[in-house]
């Protein structure tokens, strides 16, 4: 005999009160767990892909395209961070250092062994993944803020090591590399071609994030994020999956780092220190780590905000701070959550179940 729900209908609120509260809840709720219909998802994906592919042809200028490339490779790194923070709940404020591992690995392979972009890429990504896993070992013992401090320390240590690495790491001056080895008919010295290279990598990162999100693996990670003890008691190997997701995140970071290296052609330790790491954390929180387009939105906002508002570096830092405070207060799930909630509200609240005990699908 199935049980009947006796607890529903206990709420004594008037229907108007319930509706107003539900509407409010719809706009501020964390809707990451509720999927949008396939049609909406497909249209969003196609529109975004068309916009990104058409970008170099819109005549927005060299400077705009440069910022766009920076935005996209940053976004790739952010997708790794989004995976570990948004899905598995492990935040890091040392993520730029992990990108730096990839970038420096590729640069050192180029300088010492003469390996090009394509041949050094797998090694750089693998090294980032391994380092990601090794820094992740403390997560098995400590969580939350404690782990965040450890990642911050790693970041500081990484910069110190690079600065004192002599000619091997180029010390404070850094290292230079050539351009991306051309593919038949494609010369990556041309800025728009470099843009398409980074864009292709972004599409890969997006696809991987989407597939992980809808897969059993994604659900396993979310279970760990939501309740580690319960996850263990249903048979999930929490420790293994925590290290695993940090390694996957390291793969993304390595890819982003190598793309950054071959776009800038020159890297130095300051690119991967505390400030860039904090910016990555800011971007992922601003955009919404749990949402497919959240990291991309965060990267776009932070990279283009000073350009659009014509801010100098000091003013833009103030603007970031204000933005982050506003997002934390008004949209705890990030801008991605806000956009999704508006979508859900437009489509009517009947599909999404948030708050209240009157949940009938």
């Amino acid at each position, binding site marked *: 005999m199935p*049980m009947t*729900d006796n607890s529903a209908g206990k709420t004594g609120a008037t229907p108007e009160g319930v509706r107003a509260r539900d509407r409010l809840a719809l706009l501020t709720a964390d809707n990451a767990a509720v999927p949008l219909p396939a049609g909406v998802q497909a249209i969003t994906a196609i529109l975004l892909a068309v916009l990104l592919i058409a970008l170099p042809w819109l005549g927005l200028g060299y400077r705009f395209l440069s910022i766009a490339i920076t935005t996209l490779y940053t976004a790739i790194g952010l997708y790794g961070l989004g995976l570990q923070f948004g899905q598995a709940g492990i935040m890091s404020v040392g993520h730029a250092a992990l990108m730096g591992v990839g970038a420096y690995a590729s640069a050192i392979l180029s300088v010492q062994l003469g390996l090009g972009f394509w041949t050094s890429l797998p090694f750089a990504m693998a090294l980032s993944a391994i380092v990601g896993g090794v820094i992740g070992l403390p997560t098995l013992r400590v969580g939350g803020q404690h782990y965040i401090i450890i990642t911050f320390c790693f970041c500081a240590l990484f910069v110190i090591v690079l600065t004192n690495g002599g000619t091997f790491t180029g010390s404070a001056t850094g290292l230079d590399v050539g351009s991306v080895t051309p593919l038949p008919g494609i010369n990556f010295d041309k800025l728009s071609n470099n843009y398409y290279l980074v864009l292709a990598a972004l599409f890969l990162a997006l696809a991987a994030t989407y597939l992980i999100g809808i897969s059993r693996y994604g659900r396993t990670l*979310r279970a760990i994020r*939501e309740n580690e003890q319960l996850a263990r*008691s249903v*048979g999930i190997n929490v420790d293994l999956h925590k290290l695993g997701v940090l390694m996957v995140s390291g793969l993304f970071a390595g890819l982003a780092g190598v793309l950054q290296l071959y776009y800038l052609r020159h890297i130095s330790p300051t690119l991967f220190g505390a400030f860039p790491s904090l910016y990555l954390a800011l971007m992922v929180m601003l955009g919404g780590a749990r949402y497919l387009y959240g990291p991309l939105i965060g990267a776009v906002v932070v990279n283009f905000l000073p350009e659009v508002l014509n801010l100098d570096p000091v003013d833009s830092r103030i603007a970031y701070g204000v933005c982050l405070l506003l997002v934390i207060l008004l949209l705890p799930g990030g801008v991605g959550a806000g956009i999704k909630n508006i979508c859900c509200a437009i489509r009517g609240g009947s599909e999404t*179940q948030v708050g209240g*005990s009157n*949940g009938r699908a």
Partner: protein
Amino acid sequence: MAALEVRGLRKQFGGVVALNGIDLDIDTDRVVGIVGPNGSGKTTLFNVVSGVHPATGGTVFWQGQDITNIGAHRIARKRLVRTFQQAMSFPGLTVDENVRIAWEQGRRGGGRWTSPGMILDFVGLAPLGRTIAGSLPFGSLRRLGLAVALGVSPELLLLDEPGAGLNDSEAQAFASVIAQLPPQGIGVCLIDHDMDMMSDLCDRLVVLDFGTKIAEGPPSQVLADPKVREVYLGPDKKAAAP
């Protein structure tokens, strides 16, 4: 040989002895109740058997294998599954996803459910599939806790106070679901304070006090035991069990 055999199980937290050499046999074809005053070691027993806390001494055998301290997730994969006293869920995920996570884990090596929907139907949560678990009312959250545990396709279910916080009709409905489990091959071992419900539901009662087993047997016999009455009611009172 019983499915679960606990031999001389000890657990110490610093100087506090929570379990002082417990022996217990539990089969998977019946409902066994564990009772005892607060602090008598009931939940600690579950925590040590299910691998949440390591044992200080003694052994736990499950289906003939030593599972002492092999880790909570490995024990769950052997289909010895527990629920928690505080109604637990994955609060930020939908009810569907909560059950699906457990079902996907239980499906390894062949589970008993062909879809997560079956489990939701069984516990009566099917209409709430798209609700975020954290916003469920307490009664439904308790049922979700049971659904998640059932999702792993357990052969023995350790239920830690499944009725706590439920009103009478909810508790009755819950008890009727629990009573259906042993005939389907899911053994139940439960902790609860509601003696009326426990004596109706359980085939056997085990009484713990200060980390030791002081009585075991059919409910009527155990509840008439003077030692049990003393633990529960104090030496002088003659009132009925709580």
